[in-house]
């Protein structure tokens, strides 16, 4: 219940950010620099006198968009690769899993750094870089699970009845991946939010003056002693976001 409420809040914020913001999130006001909480600025203003609330809601939208795209890329390709290699095995499995391991051996930030080194920094480059970096871990989890299911007695008996491989995968294996996938997707989403923040800390990803939660957080730490407000709100929103999704995930996990 709490999860649904928190997630709902974040989603509403994101939608709001997509439609309209109280202020232009980029508009600067020298007089309002670092101003505190007020009726006009419910979360105060940042180092350029920009309205933090407006930036936070746009930032939520950006962060959700990036993280969701990353997880989508990771889950989609990871499930395909993991299912095929896990189910069929053999030399295909060997080759793909070796390549998979090779990519997995690059820590995701390293891989993202290399990709961004080639294409320069930017939002779409970041999605691509992190998306690719997320595929192998999904593939590995799915493959492990498929290996387990494949050897279960009932799959073997379905096979004896002459069901095609395609049917077995579609009807008997994929539905059984739901639990594992659900928890991986949620962990993955949370990881993506954290990875976005980490990459922003290293100066990649969303370009200023555009906000994303990670970007705001890393900009804010330079002022953490004197103006903690600039860090607190993006921080709280990140926590709410991840909290909401993992609570929701727990619920979904329990139901199934």
């Amino acid at each position: 219940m709490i999860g649904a409420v928190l997630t709902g809040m974040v989603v509403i914020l994101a939608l709001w950010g997509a439609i309209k913001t109280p202020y232009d999130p980029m508009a600067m006001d020298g007089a309002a620099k670092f101003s505190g909480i007020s009726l006009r600025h419910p979360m105060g203003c940042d180092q350029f006198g920009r309205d933090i609330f407006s930036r936070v809601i746009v930032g939520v939208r950006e962060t959700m968009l990036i993280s969701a795209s990353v997880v989508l890329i990771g889950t989609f390709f990871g499930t395909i690769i993991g299912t095929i290699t896990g189910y069929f095995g053999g030399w295909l499995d060997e080759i793909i899993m070796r390549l998979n391991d090779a990519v997995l051996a690059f820590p995701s930030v390293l891989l993202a750094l290399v990709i961004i080194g080639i294409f320069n920094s930017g939002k779409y480059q970041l999605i691509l870089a992190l998306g690719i970096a997320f595929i192998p871990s999904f593939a590995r989890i799915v493959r492990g699970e498929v290996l387990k299911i494949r050897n279960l007695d009932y799959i073997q008996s379905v096979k004896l009845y002459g069901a095609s491989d395609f049917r077995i995968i579609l009807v008997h294996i994929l539905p059984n991946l739901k639990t594992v996938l659900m928890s991986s997707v949620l962990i993955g989403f949370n990881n993506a939010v954290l990875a976005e923040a980490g990459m922003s800390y290293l100066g990649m990803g969303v370009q200023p003056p555009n906000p994303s939660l990670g970007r705001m957080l890393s900009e804010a730490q330079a002022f953490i002693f004197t103006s903690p407000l600039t860090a607190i709100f993006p921080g709280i929103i990140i926590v709410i976001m991840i909290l909401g999704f993992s609570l929701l995930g727990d619920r979904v996990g329990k139901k199934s």
Partner: protein
Amino acid sequence: MKYVLKKLLTMIITLLAVSILVFFAFSLIPGNPAISRLGTEATQESIDALTHEMGLDRPVMVRFGEWVTGILRGDFGMSYSYNQPVMKLLSQKLGTTILLSLMAILLTVLLAFPLGIYMARNSDSKLDIALTTINQIIMAIPSFFSGILLTLIFGVTLKVFTPGAFVSYKTNFMGCLGYLFFPALSIALPKVTMVSKLLKDTALSEANKDYVRTAYSRGNRTKAVFYNHVLKNAMIPVITFLGMTFADIIAGSIIVEQVFSVPGMGRILLTSISGRDYPVVEAIILILAAFVVVSNLVVDLLYHKFDPRIHV
């Protein structure tokens, strides 16, 4: 034994794949390292001369061949920026990063396993709910941010350690461990929450399976069933996850080293990427990748032990 040999072989193939990926990825990156070295006073003549001196005007395959044969001899080449052998440049930093990563892994296991087991055994108790909530909040804090908070609290306010005053493990091993404790903790914290949550979830779903119910109905003692069957089976995804976490932990150390000014591989990696110091970048990635691949091998072997059904 045959299984182990086979795994070793695949590990070597993986490393070869990594080295090919690494070398050619960096040949694609735009930007000439000679220009970076010459800086703003560069002229076309001096750039050409230095490009030639650094051997960058030769075909890429020739350079790859030399690079690989060099590595087999333990020679990663010379750093462009420092005019020093790469290995000499990295030796101490490599130790620091590996030490930091190992500490983070150790902390993760030490904290996550007892926590996860406790939460699974006492699920839905008040303490479990409290722990789960705290867990989930901690999971939501990026490691660099928890690093900053730890520095703020323990470094600046409580003065438990001096931020930035890193001592090398060669001069003072305990002091180095002490300094690395907080960086390791901020890397480990999110991993602890994830591993313990996963352990709890899988243990609970395992506990609901028929065979466990059967065991219970036969009057087996709860504890024995839990440790002998439930936990053993629940370990499989947890170990997979831990294995994948090694790469994440190293990635985490690259970022967290920046927060705590730890002079490990992370810092030199970032500056070398932007400095186009390819020999250094390639060496670092290859070494870190080797570390990950070896730890994955260990995971695979453990996997094998826990679940004999899986034969790859």
